[in-house]
């Protein structure tokens, strides 16, 4: 794969550009540039946190357990949140071509996000909160004196504030979509998918954004419920919540939100990759059916996180396994197939933007395989909460959603006339190969039954950790190339 100058890019048609609605381009670009600039910085920082943790487990450096678990908590919640922020930047940038979105709401989300992040980081690194990003009830209020109620409150309120910002954003996308298309069903292309309508279906960006809107509103509401109950419990221990119910609420919220970050970011693939291949991404009937199926499945599949909670209803676990398998169908049979068909013998010339976006669908598709394997109850029995789990989610997050975000950043840069250089190409290969090898080391560790979220590893596990740390370093260096590149271009992007 070689990199070439910006002349390789077939710029979106004038028709698409004139279809922009709402905010003037300068303000829109400035806000999106702010979203992606913050995303780039935070991604780099959190990747360094990840590298430090892996190096500590390998015995290369020493991080005390309390600090390790703080880093673990910050890395987890930070990656979920920043993937959401970056994904929202991608979605908003392209969705604003089709519907009239509010830049004030986009700004409000960013303000809530930043305020929330300050509280979360304060709770973790000042207050010592380290209950992992999943904050499983009642751990936030049971630290054995390691952190206090104030730290718990700071973390929980911070996450709540971030959620409020995203809720505002999704209410606005829902408003704008309904204003343009009349109903969410029409925006999902249901008349074309299930009826006999011969009208042109809504574009892929609108369909995906509608799904993201529909699934996130209940997810964030449910997340707010368990965050609030945990907050009350921190100050009033007599107020208790059923621990199994709490887990169901947390994983319903968490599973939907993190998956929606991929659904937001993949919009960049739909919009940008065709500018290289000259083959428009169409809302075909299979595409529309796949997105509706995805919408329903992502809201019902979360019990696969609870297979080892034997007290959870067995029917829920069976449903979780079946939906874990069927959830792979839209990814592999529709998104991956469409991406391959879009690129195959297209005569396109590669650059970093196209390479990252193509690699992101590869990462998403490959990561689905060990995830589905882990979604088998009989196998989950010996894989759950081992390093197999970060193995599969790093494949489709690091080489999926994050690659999509970096690809979008390069796209914004090349729109300003910037050209990729040798360092960018080196960064690309370091990032792609490093991510595959890093995730592979995690999967191998899971197969060795090494538990996840352990600050200190036993000696027999450290060889695997050292391999993982080396490839984590390779990934971080590649990511720093991307981030520094984008930050150099961000002022031009904003303009």
């Amino acid at each position, binding site marked *: 794969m070689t990199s070439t100058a910006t002349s390789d890019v077939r710029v979106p048609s004038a028709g698409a550009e004139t279809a922009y609605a709402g905010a003037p381009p300068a303000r829109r670009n400035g806000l999106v540039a702010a979203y992606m600039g913050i995303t780039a910085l935070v991604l780099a920082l959190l990747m360094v946190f990840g590298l430090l943790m892996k190096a500590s487990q390998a015995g290369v450096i020493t991080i005390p357990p309390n600090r390790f678990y703080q880093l673990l908590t910050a890395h987890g919640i930070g990656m979920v949140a920043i993937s959401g922020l970056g994904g929202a930047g991608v979605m908003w940038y392209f969705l604003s071509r089709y519907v009239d979105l509010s830049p004030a709401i986009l700004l409000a989300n960013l303000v809530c996000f930043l305020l929330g992040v300050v509280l979360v980081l304060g709770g973790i690194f000042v207050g010592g909160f380290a209950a992992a990003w999943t904050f499983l009830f009642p751990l936030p209020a049971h630290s054995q004196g390691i952190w206090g109620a104030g730290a718990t409150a700071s973390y929980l309120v911070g996450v709540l504030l971030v959620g409020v910002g995203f809720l505002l954003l999704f209410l606005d996308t829902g408003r704008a979509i309904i204003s343009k298309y009349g109903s969410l069903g029409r925006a999902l292309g249901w008349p074309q998918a299930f009826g006999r309508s011969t009208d042109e279906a809504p574009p892929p960006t609108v369909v995906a954004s509608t799904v993201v809107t529909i699934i996130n509103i209940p997810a964030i509401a449910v997340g707010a419920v368990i965050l609030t109950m945990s907050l009350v419990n921190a100050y009033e221990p007599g107020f208790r919540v059923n621990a199994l119910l709490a887990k169901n609420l947390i994983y319903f919220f968490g599973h939907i939100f993190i998956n929606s970050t991929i659904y937001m970011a993949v919009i960049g693939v739909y919009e940008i990759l065709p500018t290289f291949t000259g*083959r428009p991404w169409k809302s075909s009937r299979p595409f529309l059916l796949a997105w509706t199926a995805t919408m329903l499945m992502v809201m019902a599949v979360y019990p696969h996180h609870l297979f080892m*909670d034997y007290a959870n209803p*067995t029917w829920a676990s069976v449903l979780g396994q079946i939906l874990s398998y069927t959830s792979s169908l839209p990814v592999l049979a529709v998104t991956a197939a469409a991406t*391959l068909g879009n690129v195959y013998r297209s005569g396109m010339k590669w650059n970093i933007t196209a390479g990252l976006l193509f690699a992101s669908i590869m990462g998403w598709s490959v990561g689905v395989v060990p995830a589905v394997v882990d979604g088998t109850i*009989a196998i989950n029995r*010996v894989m759950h909460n*081992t390093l197999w789990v970060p193995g599969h989610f790093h494949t489709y997050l690091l080489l999926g959603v994050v690659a999509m975000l970096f690809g979008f950043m390069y796209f914004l840069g090349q729109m300003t006339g910037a050209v990729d250089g040798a360092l960018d190409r080196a960064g690309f290969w370091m990032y792609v190969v490093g991510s595959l090898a890093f995730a592979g080391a995690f999967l191998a560790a899971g197969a060795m039954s090494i538990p996840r979220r352990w600050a200190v590893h036993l000696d027999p596990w450290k060889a695997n950790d050292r391999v993982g740390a080396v490839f984590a370093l390779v990934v971080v260096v590649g990511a720093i190339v991307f981030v520094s590149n984008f930050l150099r271009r961000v002022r031009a992007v904003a303009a």
Partner: protein
Amino acid sequence: MEQNIAVLVSAILGTTLLVIFAAVARSAKTTASPDDIASATARWRRTVLWTLVLLFVPVIGYSLTKMPYPSGGQPAVITVEATGHQWVWTVTPDTVPVGQPVEIRVTGADVNHGFGLYDASNRLITQTQAMPGFTNIIRYTFDSPGTYRILCLEYCGLGHHTMFSQLVVTSAK
């Protein structure tokens, strides 16, 4: 056994996908009719879809017969009570005989823990969550004597990685 299946399936299918993506990336420099490619893509999509469906149905059906959840049938003769505390396990009794069904009743005294049972070669053989307010039951028959380690598999705070215990399985007399 299950770990080997997981690795084998993931390696074969994951590598296949990587090869396909790499081949398509290399093909991109050549050109072909978009209409031809579109119809070929539709055929491939149908093929992939039905292949996966035909693969999934028996795999799901068979694997659901191997769920670890306790059901009716013969009650176990030996019962072990295992409770997770921050950050220690209490396991009573901590010795059981080989070859007899054992019922391990697992709960959490304070927060969520994960009861992970490892064999002598440090391979995870079964697990369940140790939850406050609930008792999760593992039914297991040990087929070889030895010392089985218990590790915590759900993050439970600062001492999570220090939660080791053991269950000794003795030879039949």
